[in-house]
C-alpha cells in the first residue's frame, strides 16, 4: 500500500507555512484559554503514532504539536512506529499499565482493550457539534456502547488506482462501476498485456481492503448483526468464485504480495490497476521520472457488487488515551486541538489526499477539489463499512482481521489449495472460536 522509502520525497508545502505563522500561535494560545480541558499542572505527554507515509503530513503534525506545547505548556514526546507495530505496543501498554499516554493506531485498536481507554465522549461531542457531525462508520469505530473510547482522526482511503491509457486501450471510457464490468476489465487489460493485481498475501491494508469489499459486494458476511458467524453461505461462495476469476486475470504472484508490492509494481509500470491509498499518485507526482505515470493514472471507487451499494473497507486511524495516564485532561485537550479547523485543515492539505476526515464539515477543504484526481478519496469516510461487517466492531472483529481469517479463506480458494466448501468451513471454525 505505501512505500516507506518514498515518504521523504515530499517536502513540507504551503500548509506548513500556515501552521508556523505567528497569527496561528496566538490563535492556539487563545484556544488553550477557552478550551473546556485544562491540562494538569506539569503535564507531559508521550504519544506513539503510526509512521508517516507522506513527509509533509508529519511536518504539519510536528508543527501542530509545537503549537500545542507553546499554547498549553504541555510537552509532547512523539514516537513513531510502522503502522503494523503500533498495535502490539499498545497491547503491551494496556496489559502492563505503563507506556505512552496516547496511541494513534489503526482500525479497531481501542476495541482490543476498551476498558483501558479514557472516556473521551466529551471531546467527541464537542468536535461533532462544531464540525457538522461524525460519519457513521467513524462512530462505530470509536464508540463502545454509548461511550467514546477514542477519537476517530481520519481514514486512509483504499480505492482503485488505474492507468487511463490502458483503460482506453481495453475499450472502456471510464473505470468499471460494477463487479461484472470490473471482471471484464481485468480480462481485457490482461489480454492487452497490462494486467492489474490485488494483494492476496498477509497485507493488512490492501489485502484486507479488497477481500472484505469482495465478500460484502456479493452479500457475504462473516457475522450477522448479533455476531453470529455466517461465513459459510452461498453468498460467500459467489464472492470466492468471483475473486478467483479476478485472480486468474491478474499478474502472477499476487498471493505473495504484502502492502508495498502493488506500489512498487504500479510505479514500475508492471501493473495497470490495483487497490491502494493515494500514495502511488503522490509518489509518482513528486518523482520527475514517474511523471508519465502520474499524468496517466486516476482513482475510482471500488466497483459495486450485486448487493447494489458500496461495500468498501478503509483504514481508520483512531487516537486513544490510556487510562494509566496521569494527565487525562491534557490528552483530551490535545485530541480536541488536533481536530480544530485551524489545525486540521492545513494538516489534511499537507497529507495530499492520503488522509480523509471523519467530520462532515471538512468536505469543503480545497484539497479535495484542487486536483480532481483526489476527489474520490474525499468520500471514503462516508462509504466505508467497518471491519466488523454487520456485526460489532469490537475486539472479535479486530482479532478476525488480525488473524487474516477471511483473507486466508480467499487465498486458499484462489490458489486452489482448498475448494470453496472447505475454505469456508475452515474460516467458519476459526470465526466461531473468535466470536464465542
Amino acid at each position, binding site marked *: 500500500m505505501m512505500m516507506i522509502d518514498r515518504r521523504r520525497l515530499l517536502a513540507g508545502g504551503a500548509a506548513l507555512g500556515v501552521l508556523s505563522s505567528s497569527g496561528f500561535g496566538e490563535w492556539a494560545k487563545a484556544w488553550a484559554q477557552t478550551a473546556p480541558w485544562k491540562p494538569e499542572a506539569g503535564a507531559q505527554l508521550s504519544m506513539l503514532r503510526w509512521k508517516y507515509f507522506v513527509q509533509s503530513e508529519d511536518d504539519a503534525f510536528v508543527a501542530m504539536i509545537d503549537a500545542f506545547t507553546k499554547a498549553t505548556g504541555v510537552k509532547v514526546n512523539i514516537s513513531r512506529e510502522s503502522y503494523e507495530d503500533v498495535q502490539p505496543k499498545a497491547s503491551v501498554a494496556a496489559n502492563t499499565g505503563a507506556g505512552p499516554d496516547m496511541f494513534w493506531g489503526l482500525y479497531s485498536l481501542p476495541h482490543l*482493550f476498551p476498558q483501558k481507554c479514557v472516556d473521551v465522549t466529551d471531546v467527541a461531542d464537542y468536535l461533532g457539534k462544531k464540525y457538522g457531525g461524525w460519519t457513521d462508520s467513524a462512530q462505530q469505530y470509536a464508540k463502545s456502547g454509548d461511550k467514546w473510547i477514542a477519537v476517530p482522526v481520519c481514514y486512509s482511503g483504499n480505492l482503485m488506482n488505474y492507468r487511463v491509457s490502458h483503460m482506453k486501450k481495453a475499450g472502456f471510457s471510464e473505470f468499471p462501476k460494477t463487479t461484472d464490468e470490473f471482471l471484464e476489465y481485468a480480462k481485457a487489460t490482461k489480454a492487452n498485456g497490462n494486467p492489474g493485481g490485488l494483494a492476496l*498475501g498477509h497485507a493488512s491494508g490492501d489485502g484486507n481492503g479488497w477481500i472484505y469489499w469482495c465478500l460484502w459486494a456479493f452479500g457475504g458476511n462473516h457475522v450477522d448483526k448479533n455476531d453470529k458467524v455466517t461465513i459459510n453461505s452461498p453468498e460467500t461462495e459467489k464472492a470466492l468464485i468471483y475473486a478467483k476469476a479476478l485472480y486468474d486475470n491478474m499478474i502472477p504472484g499476487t498471493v505473495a504480495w504484502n502492502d508495498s508490492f502493488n506500489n512498487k509494481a504500479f510505479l514500475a509500470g508492471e501493473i495497470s490497476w490495483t487497490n491502494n491509498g493515494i500514495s502511488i499518485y503522490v509518489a509518482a507526482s513528486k518523482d520527475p521520472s514517474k511523471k508519465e505515470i502520474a499524468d496517466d493514472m486516476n482513482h475510482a471507487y471500488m466497483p459495486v457488487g450485486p448487493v447494489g451499494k458500496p461495500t468498501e473497507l478503509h483504514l481508520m486511524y483512531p487516537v486513544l488515551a490510556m487510562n494509566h495516564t496521569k494527565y487525562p485532561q491534557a490528552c483530551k485537550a490535545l485530541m480536541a486541538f488536533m481536530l480544530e479547523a485551524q489545525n486540521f485543515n492545513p494538516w489534511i492539505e499537507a497529507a495530499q489526499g492520503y488522509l480523509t476526515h471523519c467530520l462532515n464539515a471538512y468536505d469543503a477543504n480545497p484539497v479535495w477539489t484542487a486536483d480532481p484526481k483526489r476527489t474520490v478519496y474525499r468520500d471514503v469516510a462516508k462509504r466505508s463499512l467497518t471491519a466488523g461487517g454487520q456485526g460489532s466492531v469490537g475486539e472479535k472483529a479486530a482479532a478476525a482481521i488480525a488473524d487474516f481469517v477471511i483473507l486466508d479463506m480467499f487465498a486458499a480458494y484462489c*490458489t486452489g489449495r482448498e475448494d470453496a466448501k472447505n475454505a469456508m468451513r475452515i474460516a467458519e471454525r476459526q470465526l466461531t472460536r473468535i466470536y464465542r
Partner: protein
Amino acid sequence: MSDDAMVARIKPARRETTSWERLKANRNWLGFWFMVPAMAFLILFLAYPLILGVWLSFTDARIGRPGVFVGIENYEWLAGDTNFWLVVFNTLFYTLVASVVKFAVGLYLALLLNERMPFKAMIRAVVLIPFIVPTVLSAIAFWWIYDSQFSIVSWSLRNLGLIEGNINFLGDTWNARWSVIFANVWRGIPFIAITLLAGLQTVSPSLYEAATIDGANSWQRFRYITYPLLTPIIAVVMTFSVLFTFTDFQLIWVLTRGGPVNATHLMATLSYQRAILGGNLGEGAAISTAMIPFLFAAIMISWFGLQRRKWQQGEDN
C-alpha cells in the same frame, strides 16, 4: 569436680560447635550461597517466563485482560485446527531440511578451510559475513531477490533467455518453502562452518601422521579420526542450529508473513500472529508451549550423544 558437673560444662560448648559453626564450615552450604545470584537470574529471566507462558496456555487470557483457567481447551482447539497442523508440518520440514543442508555444507566448508591455502585468514573472515549481517537486513535483501516482479534472479535468467516469465518465488507454496529454507541455510552455514573448523583444529596432526603411515586413505582418515573426534562439537553445534532454526521468526516475518496461504508460517510466527496481533494470548501461548516437546527432544538427543562419548575420558578409543 563431679562427673555431672563436668558433663554440664562440656554440653553447652559442644552444642555451639554443632549447629552454626558446622554449617559455616560446610562447603555445600557455602556453595549454595555462591549459586544464589545465578539461580535468581535463571529463575527470574528463564523459569518464570517459561512457567508463565505454560500457565497462559491453560487460560483464555486476552491482551489487556487476565484470563480464567480453561484447562486444555486451547490445545483441543489447536488439535482440530488444520492451519496449526500445517504450521507444525512447515516447522518440522523447515528445520529438518535446513539443518541437514546447513550441516552438510558447513562441514564441507570447515574441511576446506582447514586445508592449507593462500589468504586463509581472509577467506575465513569472508565466510562469516552472512552470520554478521543482521537477520532483518539479510531478510530484506532476500525479499528483493525473491520479488515476484523485480527479482534479480528472474531478470538474469530472462535476459539469458532461459525462462519466459518471472519466477514466482514467494507466491507458490513449494517455491516459497524452498526460498525461505535457502535464505535460512545461507545465513546459518557460517556458524556451523566456523565452529566445526575450531573443532577440527583441536585434532592432533600426529593422529593423521600415524594413520597415513598405517596406509589410511583420506576417506578413512575422515571416517576414523576426524569424524569421531568432531562428534561432541557436532552434537553441540547441531543442537544450537536446530533450536535456532525451529524458533526462527525474523526471516519468515520479513519475507512472507507466513504466506502464501500459510505455507511458510512457522510455529513462532503463528504464535505471534495469534497472541499479539490477534490478541489471543492463551492460544498463542499454547502454540509456543507446543514447541517445547520438540525442542526438548532436540536437546535430549544431543545430551545423550555427548554422554555416549566415553572415549573422551579415555576409556575407549
